[in-house]
Structures are given as C-alpha cells and as structure tokens.
C-alpha cells in the first residue's frame, strides 16, 4: 500500500486537475464597442449635403412619429459615406438625426451583418458559400480569392488595404452559382480563372463587367434555349386585319 502511494504521488503532482474543462465558444465578431483611435465617439461624422438630402427623402417616407423606421436605410447611407463601414460616430449621428436612443441604433447595426462595424478595404469581396454555391464549387472560389490576394483568410484585409474578403450566406443568385459580390456588383458563374481575372482588374483599378462571367445571358440555360425558341411575335401580329 505504501509503495503504491509513493508511486502515485508524482503522478498526481504532475497532472493538475483543471476545475473547468469546458471550452469557451467565442463569437467571430465583437458585439460591444471598444474605443480605438479609428473608432471612437470623438470622431465627428455628418452627412454630406447630398446625403443629407437623400436622408430627408427617406425620412419623409414615414409618418413623423415613426421617424425611426428610417434607421436601416440611413445606416446604409452612412456606411456608404464612411468608406463602407459603420463607425460609432455614424450610429450616434443617425440616432440624433432620428431622435432615437443611441442603443436602439446599436441594436439594429449589430443585428444586421451587412453593417460592418470595423473598417474594410477599398473593395469588399463577399464570397457566397451557402449550399447551392458550395455544390457548384464555391470552396474553390474562396480559396482562389484568398490565395490570389496573398494568402489572407476570410474576414481579413490585404496589407495594402485594397481588398477585404468575407464569406457570406446566400445572396439569391443561386441560378448563377458560384458567385461573389464586390461592393454592390454580383460576379456570377465563376471559375477559378475568371475569379482571378476579376480580382486582377480590381487591383488595377478597373471595374470588370458585372454579371455572369461565362458569357451566358443572365440565368438563361447554359446549354441553349429549350423553350421559347421561336421569334417572339410583335405587336399586331396574329390580329384581325382591322387591328393590324
């Protein structure tokens, strides 16, 4: 017995038992605000005169007591003016403009994922990885984008600040899968080659033509038309002679 105890002692001393063994799952984004040099309440933000005019138009759509209904379009307007991201100053400004408690604006801005609460690059590349795109090879597209931009990961920005890549959920362009979004434009029917081309032309400062990159017209059947192949008839055809 005593031998056993002697043997067992170093074992216990070596392997200290942890009290908590549950791993923590953390969010991919921060849902509280932290003051940083580039994002704090002291940085002033105000709509430019054109945007203020647009904002007034948006506000005018709603009854005056429901002014706060304009919060999402206004946040979007603010995000566009603020280089693609919604800083705390943007949110505070919109709260003031709509006479809302700032927290109500924060709630909206943190709820919707399309409001970026951290700065992004000049070109915001959003690669869809939802099921239809995934089945059509979006994993490869995402890998191509990431490796072509110097081996960054989804969620990161290139060192020169030109590109930010993120994975997004379905953008509703499943018939043209796989696809990615740069800014407001959809680039569809992608292959690794066309993806590289798109990235390259953005890097050169050009804007490639949005839409399907395979050359087909919107989401028409890529194997050619199977229905409605005849010439569509024009006005007056097949009518009584009186009406022709």
């Amino acid at each position, binding site marked *: 017995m005593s031998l056993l105890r002697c043997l067992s002692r170093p074992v216990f001393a070596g392997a200290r038992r942890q009290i908590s063994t549950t791993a923590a799952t953390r969010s991919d984004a921060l849902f509280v605000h932290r003051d940083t040099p580039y994002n704090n309440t002291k940085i002033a933000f105000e709509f430019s005169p054109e945007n203020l005019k647009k904002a007034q138009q948006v506000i005018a759509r709603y009854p005056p007591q429901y002014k706060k209904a304009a919060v999402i379009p206004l946040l979007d307007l603010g995000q566009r003016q603020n280089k693609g991201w919604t800083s705390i100053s943007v949110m505070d400004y919109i709260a003031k403009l709509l*006479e809302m408690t*700032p927290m109500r604006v924060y*709630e909206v801005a943190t709820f919707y994922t399309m409001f970026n609460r951290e700065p992004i690059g000049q070109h915001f590349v959003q690669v869809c990885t939802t099921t239809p795109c995934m089945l059509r090879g979006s994993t490869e597209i995402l890998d191509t984008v990431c490796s072509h931009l110097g081996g960054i990961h989804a969620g990161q920005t290139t060192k020169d600040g030109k590109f930010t890549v993120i994975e997004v959920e379905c953008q509703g362009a499943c018939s043209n899968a796989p696809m990615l979004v740069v800014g407001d434009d959809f680039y569809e029917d992608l292959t690794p080659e066309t993806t590289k081309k798109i990235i390259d032309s953005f890097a050169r400062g050009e804007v490639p033509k949005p839409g399907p990159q395979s050359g087909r017209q919107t989401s028409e059947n890529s194997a050619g038309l199977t229905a409605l192949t005849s010439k569509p008839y024009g006005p007056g055809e097949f009518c009584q002679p009186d009406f022709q």
Partner: protein
Amino acid sequence: MLRLVSTVSRPTSTGLLGKVVASSHTQNCTRRPFSSTSPKQADITLTVDGKEVTVPQGSALIQACEAAGSTIPRFCYHDRLAIAGNCRMCLVEVERSPKPVASCAMPAMPGSKVWTNTPLVHEAREGVMEFLLANHPLDCPICDQGGECDLQDQSMRYGSDRTRFHEITGKRAVENKDLGPLVKTSMNRCIQCTRCVRFANEVAGVEELGTTGRGNDMQIGMYVEKTMNSELSGNIVDLCPVGALTSKPYAYHARPWELKNTESVDVLDAVGSNIRVDSRGVQVMRIQPRTNDDVNEEWISDKTRYAYDGLKFQRLTTPLIKQGDRFVAASWEDALNAIATGLAASGAKDNEIQAIAGHLADTESLVALKDLVNKLGSDNLALDQVNGTSSPVHGIDIRSNYLFNSTIPGVEQADAILLVGTNPRHEAAVLNSRIRKSWLHTSLEVGLIGERVDTAYGYEYLGADAKALTDFVSGKGEFAKKFAAAKRPLIIVGSSLAEHPDGQGVYGQLAKFVEANKSKLVTPEWNGFSVLQRAASRSAAYDIGFTPSKKASETKPKFIYLLNADEVDPKSIPENAFVVYQGHHGDIGAQLADVCLPGAAYTEKSVTWVNTEGRAQLGRTAVPPPGAARDDWKVIRALSEIVGSPLPYDDVLTLRDRMWDISPSLVRYDITESTSTDVALVGLKTLSAKANAKVSGEKFLKPITNFYQTDVISRASVTMADCTKAFVKNEKEEFSNLGKGPQAAFA
C-alpha cells in the same frame, strides 16, 4: 433587437429634456405611438386542463392558465413588463393547434381548450430547457442565485435528467458588463430573457440597455461602456431569473435558505415601500421588495435596497455622556440621570424645552415624545427641516393639506400632472416610475415648476419660481390650457415648498386655483391636490400635531431633545442649551449632544410608519438593536420616569391606544383614509386666505441633490458612498478593483 421595447420607447425621453421642452414641433410629432392599455372588455370563458375559467378578454393564455390553477413555467414573461415571448418555456397545447403554443404571447380565446400537462407539453418544456442549459455554465455552487434561481428550480421540475450535449464546441462565452457598484454581472449565465432590458426601458427609463448581436451571439448590454444610472437599477437583480445579474454588495454573503425573512416597511423615503428584510443572526443581509400594488408594486429604489449596510456602521451602541470635549460611555441609568440633572441645571421651563423630530422618527416615539414634552409644560415641538421651528405653512388641522391625496396608484389615472418644486425621481423613485408608466402608455401631460431635472419622462418646463406659478394659475401658457382641459388633473407639491420663503404665497395661490377648479380637482372620486413628503416620519408628525405653537416658536430653547434629528443646523442650537440626542447613528445630531441615547433603527423595532398618502403601515423587528440600544418609545418612557412626569403607557398596546385617541388613522393599518370633499375644501380655504402673501421670487431648488445620501443610514452606507461616487460625482472607478485597494476596517 427587441421589437416590443422599441415601440414603447419614445425618441425624446431621457436626457433630452432640453429638446423635449424646447421644440413644440417635437412635442407634437413624438406622441406615444401606441396605446397599450386597452379598455377593459367583456370576459371570455375557456377550458384549461378540463377546468372552465373566465378571464377578461385580452388576457394572455398564461394568465388564463394561472387563473385555472395550472402553473406554467416561464422565464421571460413578467406580468408587469411587456411580453417578449422569447424564452419559449411557457409552451402549452391548444386544441386544433398543430404545434405547442407560447402561452405568454397567445391571447386567450373564448371556447378554446388548453392542456398544460400532456406528454407533448412535457416534451416541449424538456426540449426548451435542454437548449437553455446548452450554453448555461454549470457554476451553480458558486452562483449567488443558487437556491432562488428560476432556471435551477425549473430544470429540476421540468428538465431532463441527463444531457445530450457533450460540449464539443464549448459553451458560449460573453464578457461581463460593468453596470456600476450595485449590479454584478456574470453574462455567461444569461439566458436572454430580456426582462432587464424591458424593465430598464419601460419602468426605469434607462434606454441605454438593450441587446446587441443576434442568434447565439446576442448579448445584453449597452454596447458602449456605461454604468446603469437609475434609482431603480437594483430591481433588475430581482427580475433576472438566473444568476446573470446579482447584487454586488451582497455577493457571496449569504444563501437564501440561511436567511430569516421579515416583512417590513421602508423608511428612507416617504413612499413607505413594502420590503422584506432578510437577516442572518443579528445582521441585515439584504432588503428585497414585497409586492403591494397600492404602494410600490414590485419595485423598490436602490437606496431602499442597498443602504442596509449603513445599519452596521456609525451606530450608537451605548448611552454616551459628554465630558469636556469627548463622549464617555455610560449606563442607561447614568445617562438618564444626567439628562434629568441637565434639564434641571439648564433652568428650562415651559416652552424653553424643545423637541426636534427627525426624518427617521417612528410614530410611537413621536407620540411619546410629544406627550412628555407637553407634560413638561412645553409646546415647542419642532421638525428637523428648514423652518421646522415654526408652524408649517400648510397647517396641520386638515389632513388633505399635507398628504398625497390622490394616492400613489391614483397617479396613473391622472391625465395632466403639474409638479411644483419637486423632483419625484429623487424624492419618491417608485412613484416616479408610475408617472413614467402613465406617460408612456397614455396621453399624460406633465408640467414642472422648479429646478430643471431629468425625470425619466418628458415634461413642459414652466419656470423656476413663484412667478411661473402665478402665470400658470392665471391660465397663461400652453400647459395651463392642457391642464384646464384635463379630466383628472393632478398637482404634486414638493415637501420642500413648505420650507421655501415663498411657501405661504405659493400654497395660497395653488389652493385658490384648486378651489376655482374644484369641479375637477376636488370631487368625491378625485382629489388632485397632493403633497409629496420626502421624510418617512413627516406625515405622522403632522398627524399627531408635532408642531410648535406660535408662542413656542418664538421662544429660545434651553433644553433641546433631538429625536433622530440629524439635519439640524448646528448654528440654530443656542450655545448654552442642554442637548440630548436620541437616535441610532452617530451623525450631526449626536455631535451636538450632551447626552446620546442609542435607539433602534427601522429594522430593529416594530413600529408604525405613515407614508406620504397617510397610509399607516407596521414595520417589524428583523434583528435586535445593537448593544445597549433600545426601542425609541421605551427610552422616552424611561426618561419620563426619571424627569418626574411618567407617561401613562407601559406597553406598546396602550401606547397604540393613545395613538388611537389622537388619530384613529394612525393605527388603521394598510389603508388610506381619504378626506371628504367638504373638509378638503375647508382646508384649501385656510390656505387660499393667504394667497396674497408677498413672494420674493426666489427659485425653487430641489431638496435632494444626492439621491444616495439623504439620511443617517444612507450616509453611513459604503454602498451608497460608492453610488455617490459613480452616479452623482461621475467618478470613473474600476469597481472590479474594489477588493484590491486599501480596505476599510470592517472588511
């Protein structure tokens, strides 16, 4: 993001009062969007678990189930808050419904058949519970909520006995928020019921609290770093069904099953909130609210809840006699003899014997002291307030002149409120939440004459002095017109107005106005002239006539008896007077005294308190008084023996008989007795006779500048000092570092 909350919160509510007041355009366009109090409709009948039950139309299904006696588990539903319907714990089975129904968010329908105890319901509850526990830490042994945790109780009752989650991905981790020195957060435990958010937005008026993120990332907080600055913040600790929000001062101090619960009454303001004093041994461990819909609903203010640690410090535990410049501990006999000798030596006769009653003097001891002083031939009964040594301007002959006649629940019926020289948020925080509730849900209009303050609801600012009142009375201004058009107008007069140099004139003008509009303001159903007292003892003191006669108020006292009087101006006490202090804390009053007699604090005696409505309530003894301290009225009774004019009562029952003789309302507990219209009008007549008294035009100042420290108990409280630092002085302090710095000797 909580839909229901965002609909109730009005854009221009807190902190923006300048804006509310400044622009009339804002006023018009930010009318409350929805009226959520629907008129009472016909009753409907439905069947719950085979039992027929009748409930008013518009009730939630959960209420119908409760009415039928079926208990429904719930986390997010709370009958005083808006319905959120996000915890899904209250699922029940409804006939012809394909899925279980969340009973809190489902209106009860006539003729529907509901089951709350079927296999489907059991399975649904078990499933919901499983999801709630998936991210809930298993730290019950070190959680302060343990023993009174809804999640713990309901998981035992309704949960599964084993888990299917093996935590491969780990549990959700959320960082803790710093809400200030009162509320401790442990956000990992949060189940996102949003009760705290709804309370803060609807009741407390803290619209900075909300939910950020979505889905699994959703968390409660303020997004930016901020403390929760509200007088009612402690209530979110009670509301939290889990241990996410717990009390910081009480952290790790006790477990609920160790505590003795004593139902009592709060005395730190004049509302008379119903409380439950939780004590262990001789110590008060915490104070919780007790539901009383006529007074405080379910809420209590932070001062009521957290000032209890002041009961431990600065206490007078033994009689003290001043010798030279220091106090020497003495026996009761010596101390009482010293007073008798001092009284004789001072040569005080008749009105030269003065008694001053403070904020925390109980009714029994007030009666005993008045009887004793009267027996000694004096009428010099002063109150511990500005101008307390002269008879109050509103007189004490008619009760309705100094009471809150509309009653506290009556505030919710008012459709126009004029606040004169008062900030109810600090003078009666719980009452203020009722005004806010009414302001949110009805078209209530509020006007304020006095110092500009943040009231947690919008108001029209009429001015700071008597001139603004003259304008109002003469019908000038928009608010006066709204007030005239109101069906149930209410004037709330602050207690500080009686202390104001213009008090007489202001009371006179108001009384004249009320008389002129008596068809609306003084009717058998409604008395719209209410005085808001702020000291717990004041209404009782007025009721028993604890005020000096005119002759007495002009006499310079030679012997002064301070009963819990700690607001006295030391300069007002004559140099050579003999001063006795009776009370429970060594504060200003004790410093002035020649002899100190230790009394009992409100948790240590069973006495009567009369609140601002004139509602007599019985406080109960939770813990014994410390050391040699004794019940206050017994001390006075003993002293009467020594000074040679014994009082005719030996026990509390005969003393209460005496109180009955003075005013039966003092011993008719828990009810308010309204003054009849005729008598109230007579009272107003006495006031309006002086309507032409000269006014100096001095501004009305708010009587309470620091809500957290208003009396001896809260001044001795460490927690209240922390609150003062954090909320009044706005000093940023790392509360999490509190334990690391140099500590006070008590810790």
